[in-house]
């Protein structure tokens, strides 16, 4: 049960991390939202938070799947979740709007 939860959490963390990395780029922020922000300040915050999300997913994955499967799954999952975010931005960018609004509210960017 705890293993499955860790797996789900790892996947969610990875997707969220890539969403933050994408929203940290002005081009994608403007695709998702219509309001302007101080991107210079926000970029660094979103970049490091997004990157931390990917790194945090690794121990969760190892806890859930063991070191061999966990590390391998994490590596392949990065490709899958990053692709998911890229295709969301291409076809359904507004799906990321709630996250962008939350970022603007809490990160004061």
């Amino acid at each position: 049960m705890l293993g499955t939860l860790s797996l789900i959490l790892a996947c969610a963390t990875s997707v969220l991390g890539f969403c933050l990395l994408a929203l940290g780029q002005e081009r994608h922020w403007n695709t998702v939202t219509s309001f302007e922000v101080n991107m210079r300040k926000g970029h660094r915050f979103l970049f490091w938070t997004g990157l931390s999300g990917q790194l945090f997913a690794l121990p969760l994955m190892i806890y859930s799947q063991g070191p061999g499967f966990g590390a391998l799954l994490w590596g392949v999952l990065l490709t899958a979740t990053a692709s998911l975010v890229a295709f969301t931005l291409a076809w359904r960018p507004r799906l990321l709007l709630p996250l962008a609004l939350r970022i603007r509210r809490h990160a004061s960017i």
Partner: protein
Amino acid sequence: MGDTFRKSMAWLHTWSGVVMGSVLFAIFWMGTLSVFDQEFDRWMQPGTRVVAPTIISLDKAIKPVVAALTDEAVQIGISLPNDRISHLRITYRDASGNRGTLGVDPTTQLLIPDQGSLSGTGFFFPFHFSLQVKWFSIGYWLVGLAGMAMLALLVSGVIIHKKIFVDFFLFRPRKQLQRATLDLHNLTGVLGLPFHFLITLSGLIIFIQVYFPNAYEGAYGQGKAAQAAMQLEATGRYKRARINQPAPLASLDAMLAEAERQWPGGKAQFVRVWHPGDAAGYVEVRRSVADEVTMNLDQLYFDAATGALLHRFEASPVITAQRFISGMHFVQFDHWGLRWLYFFAGLSGCIMTATGFLFWLASRRVSHAKKGLAGVRVVEALTVGSLTGILIATMAFLVVNRLLPLEARFAGQDRAALEVWAFYLVWLATFVHAVLRRADPATKPARRAWQEQCWVLALLAMLAVALNAVSTGDHLFATTMRADWQVAGVDLLLLLGASLAIWTARRIGRPSQLKG
């Protein structure tokens, strides 16, 4: 070559891609299919669609077969059922080196007749690493060359991609097709980079003994004895000669029980009886690789007559590291999530190669036509045949598999060979079609060739699903109801592939698409 480092890398990227792209696409396509090779086996060999019982007695199911083969076989191998295979697969070899295969239903203990098909493990998988060109091992060397080209393409691609971080998530499908194609090429190349790099590198490492046959000499010295010593230390084969005195075979079930006791938490996946019926006969038991990434080499050897344990082998740390890399590439573990991710990552490699070709064609079509060069036309015909052509050939392979009766023979060729002939003849026909349907004038893309091949691809994929339902009664509803996900999965993937091909054909048909 260019006058700057980046230009040189661009030159390397372009020409490595144009020259090796077709081979790379074939390797990636067959590798992607090989992720589900045993599922294709089950689909293409309907006689093996049996249900495995929870507990299997080899003494009941196999000993009669071993007894029947004892006079002719010098070794008899038995692959045990697992989550992906539900029947017992028996392979044997006689004194002259001739090989044979049999199947046994583990529930009824009845022999499954030869299904006459190489299927996934016998055709798709060897094609992936040898291109089925056995003459002087040229296939292995071509694949090795393509692998090196792939590594060069990935590294040079990163160097020439000026905005790799800014364009990390960039994909604009609604832009002009040439722009969307380049976006997709960059996206699959960058996001799939860790997978593509590691899968290529691991593939090269697996065949190190082919590419560097004398590598062992550095540590073991020269000559056959040194090579044998290396093999023994690496793979731990136990051997003893037959003494030509008859002896019965002890209980295989007892040997499997002892193997499970020796490997806490581990299971056996393969049993081989050496010198069956001989007093010096012995039984090799190999541990399953389903529960870990590393393809372990754990083996136990039992005396065939008494069942006593003779020898135990576990690989050294260096070989274990090599086996981890092999396991990472071969995907023999039992992890469906990873298996599907590998499948999609493999497809992304196919898309990356295909979009690279398409971008090259689009960016040079007009300039080549103005200069009167035939390069684009030649490459486009080769590209059509290499991309949609091999997909059509694969579908034809499946369709012919469902059309040929079990006893089919023609011109001295057995059923399995006829399937392979169909694959190659259809593939050749797609190249001919691509040449005949070339664009006129040369400034236009070969729209008709692409579109017609997409329609044929969709039709063949749907026909394969229909023929599977008609010839076996295992239509999608039936396989889904009885949770036969291997067969249902292949059918569903074929239908999904057909839908994508139809979508592509219709999109190519729109006048605004495929602009240079």
